[in-house]
């Protein structure tokens, strides 16, 4: 039977099921294939904090959203066009997000009384008409999977576990994607389990052929390759990108990379990722606790390595005492804080931007340091390199802020050539003539004199230093001077970073000022608003401390400044306090990223429009 093929510009799909249903894996495979097809894409995994919440329960639902397009996109999509729901709980949790009239593919085998009860459905939504506004496609996924594997000598459980690949195969057919990327992946993944490999392959193909032959589907869709800048691409998550950025910084600087870290969601991937790269002389030290993570990093930097430590909010708090030491000893160190919902254990797998003020002020004493924030998963790569560059050049700890959304989300990265990336020069002090540990250069950086260098034996530590000589000093005037010097050194970084760029015109009616992971949603929102005739400018802060040198100038150009943040207004407070500038806030603290529409609506509200319609 001939099927219609329809070309669409962009699609958002969400795979949802029990946390044991393999939804993250299914989503990741669909992403991998979609990347190969050449679409622009952005993903958002969303999973519970519990590793295996009770099967079929609402709290155990794990989801993976993917937005792909033939044009340039910035977010994982506000609401899915297609929802794949492996059980009633997945349907219940995700239904509200679905676009009106959207498609739902359900695994009917799981819609039994028990699962309906667990999902708190009073009646079966597949029968009671409550889904009449959607295009519901009912497929007995488990049965079809069993059927496809009837000749295979595997246990029922093993067979049943393959059913996510039936859904994946079907989605490949629906969106005209090749299945070979996943076939190849299966071959490496299950190299040592040929039976499981075979079973998954069979089920994947069965799903694909089902789309082709069944009459349920009359249309398949095509999303053409996006026109991205020329080059080699790879799909990359924020955590992966950060890790590779640090290795690149180590290659650029010629320094050994040392990671001291303690596992914490959603930052554990750094340990996983970096521990693979032993042939790059990377030292990963899974420390006994967060404090040892940063302390060993400081020791490593003292000894001449690029010391880094990675964590999330609660761990970041534990590191704050040692950060004071790093400020005092003026050693290069990068601390990555993958922000998550807090305080305390809070929402460990969800995203938030509520550590900005902690990054600024969460220390004892006057302890300024550099703070930068990544804006997208791929940008984490560049942010990690930049954080390392600043740390080394200015002999200072640098905080790199990312968040759960960036960490777990992914998008294509155009891989830069090595030479396109900034150089990182390292000059260890070797000359004993005129050496003093705190004798500074024109930037106010002190010399890096590492153990093993003859004639430069010296002692540093957490006690206040005598200016220049670095010996202990309790002198009142010296302390005040040193506090000022340390601050001035950080302020000097402003001369070394780009000015704040404005996307828009001076005469626009509104400036949206953003930082961190909200970048994508804000960009899309502004693009949409402009299409409707609104005059909105956008400026995004990568550098938070120091701010870009022209920030005040930029702010002064606009009467109205809107700051959307996933917190109660951290940047807003800083801007108001520093520049006495009144700002309009848009705050969301739900553990989820902004939807494009939320920002758009705020723009319309501020500019007094009628939603453009």
């Amino acid at each position, binding site marked *: 039977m001939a099927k219609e093929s329809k070309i669409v510009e962009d699609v958002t799909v969400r795979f949802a099921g029990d946390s044991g249903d393999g939804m993250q894996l299914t989503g990741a495979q669909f992403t991998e294939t979609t990347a190969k097809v050449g679409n622009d894409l952005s993903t958002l995994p969303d999973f519970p904090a519990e590793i295996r919440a009770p099967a079929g329960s609402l709290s155990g639902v794990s989801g993976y959203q993917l937005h792909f397009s033939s044009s340039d996109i910035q977010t994982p999509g506000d609401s899915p066009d297609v929802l794949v729901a492996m059980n009633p709980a997945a349907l219940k949790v995700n239904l509200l997000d679905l676009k009106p009239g959207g498609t739902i593919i359900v695994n009917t085998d799981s819609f039994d009384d028990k699962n309906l009860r667990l999902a708190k459905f009073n009646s079966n939504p597949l029968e009671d008409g409550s889904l009449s506004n959607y295009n519901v496609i009912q497929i007995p996924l488990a049965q079809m999977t069993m059927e496809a594997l009837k000749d295979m000598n595997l246990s029922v459980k093993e067979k049943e576990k393959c059913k996510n690949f039936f859904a994946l195969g079907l989605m490949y057919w629906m969106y005209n994607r090749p299945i070979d990327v996943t076939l190849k992946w299966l071959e490496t993944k299950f190299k040592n389990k040929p039976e499981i490999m075979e079973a998954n392959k069979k089920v994947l193909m069965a799903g694909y052929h089902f789309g082709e032959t069944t009459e349920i589907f009359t249309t398949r869709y095509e999303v053409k390759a996006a026109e991205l800048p020329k080059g080699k691409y790879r799909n990359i998550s924020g955590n992966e990108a950060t890790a590779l950025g640090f290795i690149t910084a180590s290659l650029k600087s010629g320094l050994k990379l040392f990671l001291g870290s303690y596992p914490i969601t959603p930052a554990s991937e750094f340990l996983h990722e970096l521990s693979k*790269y032993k042939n790059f002389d990377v030292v990963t030290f899974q420390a006994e606790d967060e404090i040892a993570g940063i302390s060993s990093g400081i020791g490593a930097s003292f000894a001449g390595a690029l010391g880094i430590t990675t964590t999330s909010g609660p761990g970041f708090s534990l590191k704050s005492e040692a950060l004071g030491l790093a400020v005092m000893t003026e050693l290069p160190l990068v601390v990555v804080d993958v922000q998550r919902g807090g305080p305390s254990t809070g929402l460990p797998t969800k995203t938030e931007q509520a550590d900005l003020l902690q990054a600024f002020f969460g220390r004892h004493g006057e302890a300024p340091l550099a703070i930068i924030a990544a804006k997208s998963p791929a940008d984490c790569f560049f942010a990690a390199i930049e954080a390392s560059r600043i740390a080394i050049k200015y002999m200072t700890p640098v905080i790199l802020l990312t968040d759960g959304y960036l960490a777990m989300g992914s998008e294509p990265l155009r891989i830069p050539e090595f030479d396109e990336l900034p150089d990182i020069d390292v000059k260890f002090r070797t000359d004993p003539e005129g050496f003093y540990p705190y004798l500074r250069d024109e930037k106010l950086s002190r010399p890096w004199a590492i153990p093993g260098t003859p004639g430069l034996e010296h002692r540093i530590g957490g006690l206040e230093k005598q200016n220049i000589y670095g010996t202990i000093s309790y002198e009142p005037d010296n302390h005040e001077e040193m506090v000022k010097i340390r601050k001035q050194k950080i302020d000097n970084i402003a001369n070394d970073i780009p000015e704040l760029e404005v996307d828009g015109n001076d005469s626009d009616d509104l400036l949206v000022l953003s930082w961190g992971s909200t970048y994508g949603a804000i960009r899309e929102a502004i693009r949409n608003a402009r299409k409707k005739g609104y005059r909105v400018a956008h400026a995004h802060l990568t550098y938070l401390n120091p701010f870009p040198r022209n920030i005040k100038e930029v702010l002064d150009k606009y009467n109205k400044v809107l700051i959307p943040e996933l917190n109660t207004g951290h940047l807003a407070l800083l801007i108001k306090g520093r520049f006495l500038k009144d700002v309009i806030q848009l705050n969301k603290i739900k553990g989820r990223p902004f939807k494009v529409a939320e920002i758009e609506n705020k723009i319309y509200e501020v500019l007094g429009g009628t939603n453009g319609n």
Partner: protein
Amino acid sequence: METKNLELKPKYTAKDFASDVDVKWCPGCGDYSILAQVQRTAPDFGELKENIVWVSGIGCSSRFPYYMNTYGFHGIHGRAAAIATGVKLVNPKLQVWVATGDGDSLSIGGNHFIHACRKNMDIKIVLFNNKIYGLTKGQYSPTSEKGKITKSSPYGTVDFPFNAIKLADAAGATFIARTIDREPKHMQDMLKRASSHKGLAFIEVYQNCTIFNDGAYAPLTDKNTKEDNVLYLEHGKPLVFGKNKDKGIKLDGLKPVVIDLNDGKHSVNDCWVHDEFDNDSTRGFILSRFIDIENMPTPIGVFRQINKPTYGEEYWKQVQDVKSKKGAGDYNKLMFSMNTWEV
């Protein structure tokens, strides 16, 4: 090769290891002796001055690095072992020492201490145990004996002390020794042995705090009593002590008992013979408990020294293995090798 290297090394004296900073411990503090013994033995550590790093935490003991003319890092409270770990891991050539105290390593830094031992980090930890908080002016410490009256325990402490040797051995240290500030020769011996040990070397130094806990070790240091109270451990030698070497220790099953070598019933042949290199920790454990048993002498010397791969050794071996399989890393391998596509 070895000898040639040694010849190239300058012949240091104690003076070479003294920094130009005024030493600021209280007069009579046991820390002075530790500093003197370290400076005296440092020329025998077999390392170039520039390759020696002293790391410390916070406390009276932790001022130590300032007084050594080597590389030094005065850290924050309790974290010396963690800082030292970072130093040693990235540059295995360095000889890394930690100066710490009972509060620093057994209280606030307990976690780092036990894990450094467990991992057999190739660092040397010298713990100045004065059984008190000196720098904060006299609160009880985790090694203070139960019932001790201090500023923060006017009616006596209600908690039980840590036994540092037992803790270090249980945690996995591979060189475990004790010495006393008033035993300079003995301390020098311990320091030298620690310096050549591969793996985590732990030396507990009984150190008198003249200000807040004076006399804590008097029975072990007073001329009249010390010989009856101190047991010098020597490898291969029977456990014998006392002014006239007339007392011995024998093992009754797993129970150590003091025997009178002159009572006609016992002789030196009945005594427990010390084996420093015993891979089994049972006897070391019994030995470490002597201080908790009434009427037993306090052992000083090397409790145990065993051979175990160090963390750094194993780590860098793994790096070599991976390198020989995958080749040294470069940017192209890092970024272009997998799952890429061309636009």
